[in-house]
């Protein structure tokens, strides 16, 4: 969940000295760690996977015995109708899909930082125009627009897909970053650096943007999630370079050659599961980043202990009518004021 995370200068959320020394990894919530590890496995598969492919993913084995062969030792995930090795396709496909998603994530996040910071910092007419553009593109559904854009393109290669996906993937981050920049802009340290005569670009690059790192990270993770979902959906309906092997084109071929009706589960389950697990990793990572910034969302030891005792999280002070009972652990709730402003949810992770 990307929300306007509190800035680390907020006294309530500044981690204690010893916590800071323990490093970022130790402070990450368990969920985020699980997500990071899962994502790491996929990134590793993307880097070394194509070197390990037992077969050429496009090689069509003419032997009729190898058409739609179920998984065995020679073909770990079976073969397709035309005798191609599914495992090899999967390894190459993970790389291509991840490559595309990360590229879209980088480009779109840069765009959203530029638009968000510019709108908030320049203010006035600039803010009006940029905010309006952001909100309009937020409300126009991206996938149908992506479909006509890619439909008209004569070459639907990787680069074209990256440009189109990034071109429509920035508004979410831009909106959150604009809100955050508005909050930081009025802080004393920004005023101070303006007084000392720092040029605007320096204030933006060295005072404001570094204070938004956690928000930018969250919006990057979200954009990667969107890019995976959208690119796989687009490839699934045939709007991709169908001669290359990505997770989406694998699903396209499986669907168009009726893998389901034939009962060849090993053909369509692995690519879909890979997409789902990558997505899960990103959602976990994001909810972890979220908890890092908003301690209230955390469910570390104490609150869950409270849950076992059927304590309501809302009663740190005794309620007269209730029988006296132990109120262990509830302190952790009142210890975290601040938090995020309500009214900044994100639209689920509901990507196609």
């Amino acid at each position: 969940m990307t929300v306007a995370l509190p800035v680390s200068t907020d006294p309530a959320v500044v981690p204690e000295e010893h916590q800071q020394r323990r490093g970022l990894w130790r402070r990450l919530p368990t969920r985020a760690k699980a997500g990071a590890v899962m994502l790491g496995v996929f990134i590793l598969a993307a880097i070394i996977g194509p070197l390990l492919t037992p077969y050429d993913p496009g090689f069509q084995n003419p032997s009729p015995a190898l058409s739609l062969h179920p998984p065995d030792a020679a073909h770990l995930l079976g073969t397709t109708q035309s005798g191609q090795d599914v495992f090899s396709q999967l390894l190459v496909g993970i790389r291509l899909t991840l490559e595309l998603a990360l590229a879209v994530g980088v480009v779109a996040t840069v765009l959203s930082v530029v638009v968000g910071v510019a709108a908030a910092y320049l203010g006035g007419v600039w803010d009006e125009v940029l905010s309006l553009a952001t909100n309009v593109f937020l409300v126009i559904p991206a996938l149908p627009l992506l479909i006509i854009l890619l439909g008209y393109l004569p070459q639907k290669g990787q680069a074209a897909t990256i440009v189109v996906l990034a071109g429509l993937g920035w508004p979410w981050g831009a909106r959150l970053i604009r809100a955050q920049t508005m909050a930081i802009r009025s802080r004393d340290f920004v005023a101070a650096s303006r007084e000392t005569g720092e040029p605007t670009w320096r204030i933006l690059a060295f005072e404001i943007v570094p204070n938004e790192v956690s928000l930018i990270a969250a919006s990057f993770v979200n954009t990667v999630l969107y890019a995976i979902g959208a690119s796989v959906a687009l490839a699934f309906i045939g709007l991709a370079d169908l001669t290359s092997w990505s997770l989406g084109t694998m699903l396209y071929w499986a669907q168009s050659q009726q893998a389901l009706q034939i009962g060849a589960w090993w053909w369509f389950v692995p690519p879909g599961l890979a997409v789902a697990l990558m997505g899960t990793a990103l959602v976990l990572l994001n909810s972890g980043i979220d908890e890092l910034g908003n301690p209230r969302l955390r469910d570390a030891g104490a609150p869950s202990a409270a849950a076992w005792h059927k304590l309501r999280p809302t009663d740190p002070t005794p309620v007269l009518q209730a029988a006296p009972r132990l109120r262990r652990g509830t302190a952790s709730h009142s210890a975290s004021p601040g938090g995020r402003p309500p009214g900044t949810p994100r639209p689920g992770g509901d990507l196609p």
Partner: protein
Amino acid sequence: MPFIVRRVIFYIVAAWVALTINFFIPRAMPGNAVESIMAKFPNLQPSAYKALQAMLGVGHPGSLWDQYLAYLNNVFHFNFGVDVTNYPAPVSTLLGQTIPWTVILVGTATVIAFLVGTVLGIVAGWRHGGWLDRVLPGLMFFQAVPYFFLALILLELLAVRGHLLPLGQGYAGGLVPGWHWDFLGSAVYHSLLPAFTIVIASVAGWMLQMRNVMITTIGEDYMLAAQAKGLSSRRVMFTYAARNALLPQLQGFGLAVGFVVSGAIVMEIVFSYPGIGLLLLNAVTSNDFPLMQAIFLVITFAVLLANMIVDVIIVAIDPRARAREGAR
């Protein structure tokens, strides 16, 4: 300016932007769409060639401004041109046949998912750290699964292997669509699996969002005050916490509905459901550009309309929005 008027103006601007993008895409993209359409459909008449040129702005059918005005005029009269795949059927007829299927299926399933997810989110947020809260990471898996993949899996398990539900299509073959029980029953029976897919795929997103807003709301001082007054837990949970947490949740609904609709139309392909998603697939595979563009407009307007309805609901349940309305 009253809140609702401002929002309506915003939606008009958004609709205009969508219309304008839709106008310029065929004119700005490389390649000659008319030639590729004519090459694919040799049965088209020369008159269709002229009409396509005018519509997609190929050749020199008048100045850009004149084309733009003619285009807007056509859209306002629901004239989306002639479909090339089913020449000479007008695109608007095809849309009219498919839209009801999608609106009823996706609309009902989305509302059900939203309600179920919100209620689960209320409970998970209230019992923060309880069992419902602990299964959240598991639910995140369903949030990340593409709709169409979940559809494939459910189809395999429940229809291909389980023989519990039909394999696809909107209604049993041999039935004539109409207002009689045989057909309606069959349509509902065939829509169960697609609807179930949408609910499963989107419920976790609503739940997670509601849970997080609930947890933030629970920390507010008025929650403490309500408990200190000795109100029952149920009352504090629903009328104090949930009612306030619902507002950001509704705003999130407006933004997310576009994602859900996008996912759902791709999912229709798996079920061969006779809705707008299947029409879109056919348009894409046959380079039927006029149909693709019309579908984009229809989906966009539907999403804008859904957002507008959400805004009306927000005004209805948020006293602050009403107060703003009255004050100005």
